[in-house]
């Protein structure tokens, strides 16, 4: 009896192994499938309530906005073929493309555009996209192919509005209360890819042959979620997947050595920063010494950011200065005089000059009232990179007579502390956007108690923020945005440690036609540009 069972097991195992031998990772014959590994899974297919990275990537391919970004991040028409704006900049007329149809065969009309925008603006839903709609006061549809958008003030980021347009004939059926929890199990859009299926961490899209733009060269695009980056890198080396993003630093060497894989490290919008409590309100529980910008600047100057990037972030990333990424049109590069590069002497001199001296010889400077320059630095407990960065900061600051005490806590607890102003310093990061308003708004007075973590308030900065949002001339807007970054850099409520990079790879032995967007510094995926998904084509043997 027992022998029989054992035999059955061995047989079963043999069958499996033989199956494995002939199976490989092929896909259906004649169909080319591009499989991309990611480290995050999708939360929901509803663009109104999704907030995960993969979600945006999928929505970018299924839905179309009025305008998209090209490879240089300039706005080009998508659903809109052309547009004009009135003399005063308050009325925009978008002419929609002819003959665009939804994946289910219904024609797209201007009502769909109005419906989508109204839905988001009236219900406050889809915060990832609805922020693009700020300032719109009315939308009119004089005919099926024309959308007229009115604003009260000129809207500088009107052509940065990449809100996906949803089909009215499907979404209007859903009760307002149900919208947020609607599963949207089978999304219908107008984009270059149609939704096929989503299960067990795998999302499958197929190309839309009826797409009005360039039809993708790949037949299918599949997103595969991995729970750990090690396995993902192995899967890429083995050819189980054709591309990947969010690759870990630890796997860089392995993939760099793999001749079948092209690995890039590209700049991802956003940064990792030290937030400093600069709240002037009596309710602030932070160390009041940090309200002196001399100390903030000295800390910035004392941190060896390049060493931090090399030691903690595997050399991936670039030294941080101002609020917007160096690759962007709106990035302000501090002048040689303003720049606070790593320089211990300069940092010490700055503190000496401001009157902070070590009078009792314990290695820590004191203010004139005797209070010591000792601060606590909070890092998030499960972020080992940031904890290591924190340790480097402690030893850097020691050299200029500033005592830093490291503290780790859960991100939820840190969030509560930040909101209530109960902290000195912390390390965290932000993700950015092409529209500079998104990051710039963080430090406006109106965001105190919400996203303005340092509780920074500067009247000139606030005024410029409102102004830049209405400047229709790019150059003029750039000048205002430059000035804002200059103020924020000088005041240093945020000490920007680094601009983060994302490691991404493609199997170049199987696929061709991909490029970094923008060239040299950019990424393959996770862009608001979808060119790689359209242009990547299989290498035919």
């Amino acid at each position, binding site marked *: 009896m027992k022998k029989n069972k054992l035999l059955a097991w061995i047989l079963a195992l043999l069958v*499996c192994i033989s199956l494995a031998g002939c199976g490989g990772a092929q*896909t259906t014959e004649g169909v080319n499938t591009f499989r991309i590994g990611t480290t995050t899974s999708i939360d929901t297919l509803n663009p109104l309530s999704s907030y995960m990275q993969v979600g945006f990537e999928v929505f970018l391919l299924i839905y179309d906005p009025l305008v998209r970004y090209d490879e240089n991040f300039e706005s080009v028409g998508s659903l809109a073929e052309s547009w004009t704006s009135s003399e005063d900049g308050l009325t925009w007329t978008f002419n929609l493309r002819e003959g665009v149809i939804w994946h289910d065969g219904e024609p797209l009309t201007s009502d769909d555009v109005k419906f989508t925008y109204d839905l988001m603006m009236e219900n406050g839903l889809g915060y990832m996209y609805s922020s693009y709609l700020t300032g719109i006061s009315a939308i009119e549809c004089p005919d099926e192919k024309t959308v007229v958008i009115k604003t009260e003030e000129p809207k500088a980021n009107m052509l940065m509005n990449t809100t996906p347009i949803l089909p009215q004939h499907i979404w209007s059926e859903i009760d307002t209360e149900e919208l947020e929890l609607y599963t949207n199990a089978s999304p219908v859009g107008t984009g270059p890819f149609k939704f096929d299926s989503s299960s067990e961490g795998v999302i499958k899209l197929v190309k839309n042959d009826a797409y009005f733009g360039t039809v993708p060269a790949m037949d299918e695009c599949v997103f595969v979620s991995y729970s750990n980056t090690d396995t993902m890198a192995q899967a890429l080396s083995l050819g189980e997947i054709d591309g990947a993003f969010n690759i870990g630093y630890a796997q860089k060497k392995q993939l760099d050595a793999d001749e079948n894989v092209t690995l890039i490290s590209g700049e991802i919008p956003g940064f990792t920063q030290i937030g400093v409590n600069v709240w002037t309100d009596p309710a602030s529980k932070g160390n009041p010494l940090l309200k002196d910008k001399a100390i903030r600047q000295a800390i910035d100057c004392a941190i060896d950011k390049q060493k931090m990037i090399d030691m903690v972030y595997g050399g991936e990333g670039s030294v941080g200065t101002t609020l917007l990424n160096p690759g962007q049109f709106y990035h302000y590069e501090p002048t040689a005089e303003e720049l606070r590069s790593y320089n211990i002497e300069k940092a010490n001199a700055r503190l000496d000059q401001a009157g902070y001296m070590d009078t009792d010889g314990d290695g820590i400077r004191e203010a004139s009232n005797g209070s010591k320059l000792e601060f606590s630095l909070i890092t998030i407990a499960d972020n080992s990179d940031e904890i290591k960065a924190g340790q480097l900061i402690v030893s850097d600051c020691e050299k200029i007579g500033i005592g830093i005490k490291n503290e780790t806590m859960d991100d*939820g607890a840190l969030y509560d502390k930040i909101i209530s102003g109960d902290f000195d310093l912390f390390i965290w990061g932000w993700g950015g956007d092409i529209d500079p308003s998104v990051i710039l708004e963080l430090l406006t007075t109106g965001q105190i108690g*919400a996203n303005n973590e340092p509780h920074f308030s500067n009247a000139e900065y606030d005024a410029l923020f409102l102004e830049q949002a209405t400047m229709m001339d790019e150059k003029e807007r750039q000048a205002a945005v430059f000035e804002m970054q200059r103020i924020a850099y000088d005041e240093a409520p945020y000490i920007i440690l680094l601009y983060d990079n994302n490691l991404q790879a493609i199997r170049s032995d199987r696929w061709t036609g991909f490029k970094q967007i923008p060239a040299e510094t950019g990424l393959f995926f996770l862009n608001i540009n979808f060119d790689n998904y359209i242009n990547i084509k299989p290498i035919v043997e």
Partner: protein
Amino acid sequence: MKKRSLIQKSIYAVITIFAVLVFNYLLFRVLPGDPLSMMMRNPKATPEMIEGMRQLFGLDQPWYVQLYLYFKNLLAGDLGMSFYFKQPVSSVIGARIMPTIIMVGLAEVVAIFAGIIIGLIAAWKRGTRIDVATLGFSLVTYSMPTFWLGMVIVVVFSVNLHLFPTSGILTPGMTYQTTGAMVADYIRHLILPTLTMSIVLIGEYALTMRNTLTDVLSEDYITTAKAKGFDNKYILRKHALPNAMLPMVTLIAINLGLVVGGTVQVETVFSWPGLGSLMYEALRARDYPLLQGVFLLVTVSVVVANFIADITYSYIDPRVKE
């Protein structure tokens, strides 16, 4: 007499589950931090939207109202709404339960059989090299870090031998011509996680089996049986094994209960879309309703498995019958 103890045991089981439920609920509320902070920490989120979210999930209510509503809904079979997936917790769990049951169920079966056989051989050949070798094997696998073992297995079987895929449940993007092809693909993906899981479990079973069997084999009645001239196999099967199985039953029952939740590491290494990886995702996203749902399931299965073990015990062990 027996009926009464059955009722008594059922009541204890219900009380245990209730206590764990309350404890779980309070545990998550005591944790610092706003459950929605993770979701809403975004430069594009406005305070109004965060407030809207809070209302949607009932987080604007005082904690005791939330607790009351939680139990009220629970009695109606409603486990609440997942913050992260924005779907009912029951349907999120429902979609993830089968992969775990299949993988861990299979691993348990393999581990139990292998463990019993290894333990049996070791006990029988006590003191020999075979005993030392099996004991060593059991101790090493028992104390092996699961995550590390999983990676080693991936490197050996996927990277070097190219026998099995590294992860997932089906080849991504594959369209299957027949159901058979799909099942075969499923099995190919199933083998490595199952292997890892069973290696982790074998040690415990083998050690327990060996130790209890060694005890039993030194009992007087075994000597008596030997004196009577029975052959070794007969003694082992009829006299030693039934008695040695008692602690095994308890162990198996407890482990079966843990089937549901004890797979976090294996499922993470192999990206196996089961309850273990769901638990991990829920924890990362601070998705309390979902976490509570998974914990409830784990609690109920452990309690029920123990309950069944208790009952079975009274059948297979005459001493407990009274």
